[in-house]
């Protein structure tokens, strides 16, 4: 039970380290935006990776004070999980409703500051080209 819990905390922690929240864009932690179960499964499927995380999980169990952050930092720095989950993480993160919504909001703000332009403006802008098609 403890191992299962540690596994989840460590993997979620690493995910949050990989894509940290950012005050000006998204405050929510990445682990709250995407479904992390998938990533726990990916890691557990890889025997070597599973053993490595199990080692850290055991270390946490053995220590009196459960300093998850210390081990999360260590795993993140070692990049043991990164290679395995990076594509899936990018996919899930950048296609999540939350991030898409935030990105839309960001560009909507940009467009609010701009004047709406009509077709006459386009005609003015475009007429400067001189080329003529070859008449046969």
């Amino acid at each position, binding site marked *: 039970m403890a191992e299962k819990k540690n596994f989840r905390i460590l993997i979620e922690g690493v995910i949050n*380290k990989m894509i*940290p929240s950012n005050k000006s864009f998204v405050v929510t932690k990445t682990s709250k935006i995407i479904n992390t179960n998938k990533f726990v499964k990916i890691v557990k499927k890889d025997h070597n990776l599973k053993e490595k995380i199990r080692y850290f999980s055991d270390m946490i169990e053995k220590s009196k004070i459960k300093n998850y952050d210390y081990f999360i930092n260590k795993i993140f720095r070692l990049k043991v999980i*990164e290679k395995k989950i990076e594509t899936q993480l990018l*996919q899930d993160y950048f296609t999540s409703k939350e991030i898409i919504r935030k990105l839309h909001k960001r*560009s909507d703000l940009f467009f609010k500051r701009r004047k709406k332009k009509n077709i006459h403006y386009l005609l003015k802008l475009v007429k400067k*080209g001189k080329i003529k*098609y070859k008449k046969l």
Partner: protein
Amino acid sequence: MRSKKINIIIIGAGASGAAAAWNLSEGENKNKFKITCLEQGPLLNKNSYSFNQNKWEIYKNKKFHIDPNVRKLKSDYPINDKDSPISISNFNAVGGSTILYSGHFPRFHPSDFKTKTLDNVGDDWPINYKDLEPYYDTNDKIMKVSGLLGDPAYPSMKYLFPPIPLEPAGELIGRSFNKLGWHWWPSYSALFKEKKNRENFTRSTVNVSYWPEALRNGVKLKTNSRVIKIITDDKKNAKGVIYINRIKKKKFLKANIIILACSGIGTPRILLNSKNKKFPKGLANSSGLVGKNLMLHPLGYVEGKFTKFLASFRGPTGCCIASQEFYETKKKEKFKRGYTMQILRGSGPLETAMQLKKFNKLKFGKSFLKEFFGYYGKTISIAIICEDLPEKNNFVELDYKNCDSSAMPGLKIHYKLSDNSKKMLVHGILRAKKVLKLAGAKKITAFGPVKHAGWHIMGTTKMGEDKKKSVVNQYGQTHDIKNLVIVDSSIFVTSSGVNIASTLQALALKITDHIKKFPEKYTI
């Protein structure tokens, strides 16, 4: 007494097949024909391939990947492109490659039909722009093409929906072209807004334009039905096709007229695979030109990174404006014919992140989002689409070592970039860099030819009046077999420097009009 109907089989339900099916089922003579279209792929739900869905950026790298060798769906066939710097991109389903196209919809120029006379390269078409013009107009209307009237690079057009807004990135580049005094024009795009969804543009695939009407008119569409052979009779006429149906059963279907609409690779594949004692080199191949003269559009890619946010991803995927300043042959240049510069809208968030990761410009950790926003919405790309000249050494042949799910041989592509194309590509890349630099790009990257750019496949069953030098006549009718007709881009004589959907559909409409008017010329 009721007169007997003429059985027509159309092979392929893509851009040209759909236009052909619709046209034959319309108008006065429509009751003369019984039309069946056989398509090797399925009929997809239109929401499944919508670019507007959040997950599209994932799907386009999986089941909707542009490369059939990566996708490997049942409906795909293997294409060995090891001997080509450009790999084939397509999609096999009802709708064909319009399922994945961005809807960029320019026409050929009048000069594209007369390259031999004008520039002493390629060959002249037996038809000209004026012959196709009414069909271009009809097609633009049905495909709901949007654009701005008055483009000096083209003869006047009739039915265009209002142009797609340029957005800041397009305007910036437009100004840059103005400073240089070079031609540019908002893109012609088969994109429209649906009543239900006013926010996004919908691509006008043939599944939403031609097919609904053709099916209402009584055309029978058989999906998951792969034609493997066309059968001929003792008098050297086509008598029907053998196809594999969805439950993998071999079936024979009789026809009076057979129309091939399977693209520049699918059509020669069937013709070559249909060889028999009377046609030992493959059907309609007395000239030996089936599969030869393969033309692909070599593509150059130039990307500029700007410091300010331009929201360059805004708007529908694809081309925003096009410049045809270097479209025609210029005496002072070292190459003949020319190219179009297409200014593309920026990529979505996932593609941006994946590309940055690939080139080590995005690292996980504290700076991840900062690095991401350093690029997202701040890049503008220009694609150089070069006219490719026909050459016999560029060809496709059957690949008996790699067969598809129906045991039909796949294809092998033999293709090399000509010196003319190489020079054109370099010229285009340098000019695109100039445009981006003038627009204020701080960093510019470029490469070419782009590998996954073989969308426009042409020339493999060339059109012409001389049966020794071509496969079909100007009506798409094969010289060797009266009741065998080709309507796809394989009959193109030259390639032009623009996307081909508009022209191949106009041609399909023209050819099928002729069949409607003079069916006796095609029947036995």
